[in-house]
């Protein structure tokens, strides 16, 4: 499986994983397809798990006093 999961938004990865699970539940995949999708599913599951455990929340404060919106880092995930 050469489809890259890097840069894939979590939501997309998770939804794809759920979609794959549903396809498997329907049970109408032929063996070759099933193995491909199985591999993809595991790849997505690993990616999602990694995303959750490695990503951090980030806070920026929007200063509206300036004419143009200006984003300023308040802190990084330390609240």
């Amino acid at each position, binding site marked *: 499986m050469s489809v890259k999961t890097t840069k894939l*938004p*979590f*939501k997309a990865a*998770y939804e794809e*994983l*759920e979609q*794959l*699970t549903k396809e*498997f*539940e329907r*049970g109408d*995949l032929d*063996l070759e397809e*099933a*193995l491909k999708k*199985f591999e993809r*599913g*595991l790849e997505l*599951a690993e990616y*999602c*798990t990694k*995303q*959750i*455990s*490695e*990503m*951090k*929340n*980030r*806070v*920026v*404060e*929007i200063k*509206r006093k300036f004419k143009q*919106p200006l*984003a300023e880092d*308040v802190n990084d*995930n330390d*609240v």
Partner: protein
Amino acid sequence: MTNDLEPIFSVSEFVEYINLAIGRRKVVVEGEVSSFHVNQGKWIFFDLKDDESKISCFMLAYSLDVACEDGMKVRVTGSPRVHGKSGKFSIFVDRIELHGEGALRRAFELTKKKLAAEGLFAPERKRPIPAFPEKIGLIASKESAAYTDFMRILNQRWSGVQISLIHVHVQGDEAVRDIVSAFEWFNGNADFADAIALIRGGGSLEDLQAFNSEPVARALFSSRIAVVCGVGHERDETLADYVADVRAATPTHAASLVVPDQREVLSRIRAASSALYSSVSNTLEWHDHTVTRAVGSLAHIFQKTEYAVQSVIRDLSDAVRQAEDQMKEDTRRITDEVMSITIQMEYFLSRTESCVSSAKRSLENMNPLTVLKRGYSIVRSTSGGIVKKLADTHPGDSLSVAVSDGTFSAIVSSQQKQGRLLR
């Protein structure tokens, strides 16, 4: 009588003079509302009174951001002025603040009724919060405990989110304007928020006024981005709560509604993985089973064929064996017969042989020469005939007597009948 030192005004000049003198500074006056009415939907007139005095108030309808009716205790902020045409003294009101629990409660009910009638709380317009928001617009006071609590729960539950905070006053004069403009900003910069959270800690009805104000309610209503509202404690209810797409009981509850719980999601991912595993192994098992069954069927067919072939072979070998048996039987019979014949032949031959030898012996015994040796003689007459009885001879006949080793002649001298033959 005139005084040169005192200026002389025209009426208009005087009104202008007064207005300049007293209208420069804002005043705040507290009192009870009476004779409240709205003219043409644009101008509001009412009196503000206390036990002893009364003052007229005038206001532009769009400036009114609270529900107001007679009997309410309010604080008005505005400029005193004299109306030129009528010469009436009044306060030109910029702002009305409700004052006292009763007024606030009443205003709350009035606004709630009005907004409900307009459909701002309609459940069918509520939108869901995206399942996995990547960007959250947060409208809060950055100094508040609500903000700290919200972030703590958010960080506990989920990660990878960018939170854009717009710091607002959550009570006081600037609160409504701050909150409304924060909504405007997020809606004008939709890239910053997949969902908006509006939060504030608990407080009195007065503290929560901004969240019960009509402009804030309308700002939530007109937001194109779904809004979670978590204001106050569990028991607090604000109009912002009613209008929000998702109503949270508290700021921490808002955090738990705006992002998923990573433990839950991780367990769903694990469940999905194991579902994939079991599906694939079931599929493999099924295929394996199918193949095994096919092989089994083939084996069965082969076995059946083999049985058939074996049966034919068995039949054939039975037949061969039978034929062999028959042949053996026949051979045995023939052999027996041959044996029997041989034995009979041998017997016959031996008997014949013995017969022959006996006959030979008999013959040998019968041989006259042999007899001669035993002392018998052959007597012949002259005619050559063998003398067997007396009658064959006559006295005086010459006879030839043959003994074992030759012949001699004799003459019959006498004849006696039945004499002694042997001595």
